[in-house]
């Protein structure tokens, strides 16, 4: 059991704390000059892989990212957290918003063919599109079992027990390896990259390729028609007591 290879995916997204601005053409959001970071759920994914490596359950962590030239920084961050080597599937600048989960899943399916990992760990969703699709699509393409929204991952002999956070509570499932797992926020608390690891990361290899090299057609299947700000939140109304509250709710047709 010692010596699994794990493929982890990470995505460069606009930093979660940034105030998002809609582009003047209404077809997307402003990304130029805006602070980007690794998708928070992907940090959980990398952290879990690194913890498994420290427990000697995993022997090698390969981190892959699909994105523009700057995605290399995201991969380097993952290497500084403890991944062993990186794969950068590079997209032409400015086209990253067109890359949709179906294309990402196809790319990862090809990477799985090449790298032959025992497990793929992804973040459960990216905070820019909130799609939550890549894990499931990938599992389907590979015909592998999937454990999504994982808040606990326990690797056994040839299988993984996962606790999933679902609407009804927590669900424990067991899947056989190889499998695709998606990380949720409470899976772990990602580490800071220490300085020695930042220095070590400089020497780790990042292989570069483009989707064409993998034979994947990444043309979008969905077309964005319009992007608008959510409506401005209006002030609420204070009521003196519960019976007035009930009357108001009935009045507005909410009861």
């Amino acid at each position, binding site marked *: 059991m010692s010596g699994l290879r794990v493929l982890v995916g990470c995505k460069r997204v606009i930093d979660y704390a940034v105030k998002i601005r809609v582009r003047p053409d209404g077809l997307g959001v402003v990304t130029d000059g805006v602070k980007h970071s690794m998708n*928070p759920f992907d940090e959980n994914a990398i952290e879990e892989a690194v913890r498994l490596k420290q427990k000697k359950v995993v022997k090698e962590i390969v981190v892959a990212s699909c994105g523009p030239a700057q995605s290399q920084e995201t991969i380097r961050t993952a290497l500084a957290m403890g991944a062993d080597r990186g794969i950068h599937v590079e997209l032409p600048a400015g086209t990253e918003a067109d890359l949709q989960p179906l294309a990402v899943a196809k790319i990862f399916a090809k990477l799985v063919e090449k790298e032959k990992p025992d497990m793929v760990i992804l973040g459960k969703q990216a905070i820019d599109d909130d799609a939550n699709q890549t894990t499931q699509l990938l599992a389907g393409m590979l015909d592998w079992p999937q454990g999504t929204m994982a808040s606990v991952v326990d690797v056994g002999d040839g299988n993984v027990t996962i606790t999933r956070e679902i609407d009804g509570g927590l669900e424990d499932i067991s899947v056989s390896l190889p499998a695709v797992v998606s990380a949720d926020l409470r899976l772990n608390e990602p580490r800071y990259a*220490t*300085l020695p690891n*930042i220095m070590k990361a*400089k020497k780790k290899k990042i292989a570069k390729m483009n989707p064409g090299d993998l034979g994947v057609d990444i043309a979008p299947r969905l077309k964005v028609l319009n992007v608008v700000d959510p409506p401005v939140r209006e002030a609420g109304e204070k009521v003196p007591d519960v019976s007035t509250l009930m009357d108001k709710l009935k009045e507005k047709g909410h009861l």
Partner: protein
Amino acid sequence: MLGRLARPLVQRCATSITRDAVAARHISTTMLPEDVELLRKMCWDFAENELKPIAGQIDKEHKYPLEQVHMMGELGLMGMVAPEELGGAGMSYLAYAVAMEEISRGCATAGVILSVNNSLYLGPLLANGNQEQLEKWVSPFLDGQHVGCFCLSEPGNGSDAGAASTTAKHTGDGHYELNGAKAWITNGYESEAAVVFATTDKSLKHKGISAFVVPKPHEGISLGKKEDKLGIKGSSTCVVNFDNCMIDEANLLGKAGDGFKIAMRTLDAGRIGVAGQALGIAQASLECAVAYSQQRKAFGKPISTMQTIQSKLADMECKIWGARLINWHAANLKDNGHPFSKEAAMAKLVASEAATYCAHQAIQVLGGMGYVSDMPAERHYRDARITEIYEGTSEIQRLVIAGNLLKEMVQ
């Protein structure tokens, strides 16, 4: 250990007004090498999550941030300038300047502890120590568990470092006996070793000064009371007294009589660190002012829309970026083996004056709120002030700059 170094869940999800307003601060990655940018992001995260939340409390309680110093040690920050062979991170001075700024932006006290250990304690040892000294006095002082200090100033002389009157008498039996007092020593209480400058022959003036590394606590060393300072209150500052303090002659650092040169070279590099600290305080002040001005309304509009406020914010931003770029330039010169005294002095001078300016104007932007401890502006104002004084007063920096400038320009 893992848990302590992990980023708290609540902070990762929190979206306070201040973060929203300023989280998009963007430094072009074409200006910093990839590893330095990675380091900058890590330090920024660390400062946001671990330092900012406690900075007010350690200021109020005059509390040494022990836990945070240990965390910085585990991350490799406390020994970041030391080479890998000795257990350090072997990072460039550019990386150090950037780390100092981001850490100090979270907490200026953490910044001064970081800079004293790296530049003032490790600096002279790395430049002048023999193998035995490096193993004994450098390697154990890299992980935050032990910190050092730097004893140059005395009650009778600060700027006039050459007039040091602490004496070191070479005894016949392989010891030096130290007598005298050193003043304004940062990390005075927590340090377990000190680089001390003492004269073996006052008649030789500054050429009689030698550098020594002295363990603490030690027979013959006593500490004065902790100074009650205006700012960086979490850092201990005190007089260190030497009364017939006997140290092994193996503790002589570098050659006898080289002490003044060692001190000056150490301070050159230290200035880059202090400039970083000043920049962190300045940046924190600017962010405080910007966030407040977006929220505060007067005459029906946020005050950030008003010209007098915008004028201040613009001036703050200009002074910060001007100082930052000189500091990066000084660090790059040092990293590439070029002379950098003038540039380091310029960086320290410009950055410290930027810090006091920005902190002053931040209080002004906040108005009454700037005067109370509910907002960090008043703490930045108090923290900033020392950066124009220590590691060479602004007046001394001007002399260093002019001296170098005249040498360059006048044939």
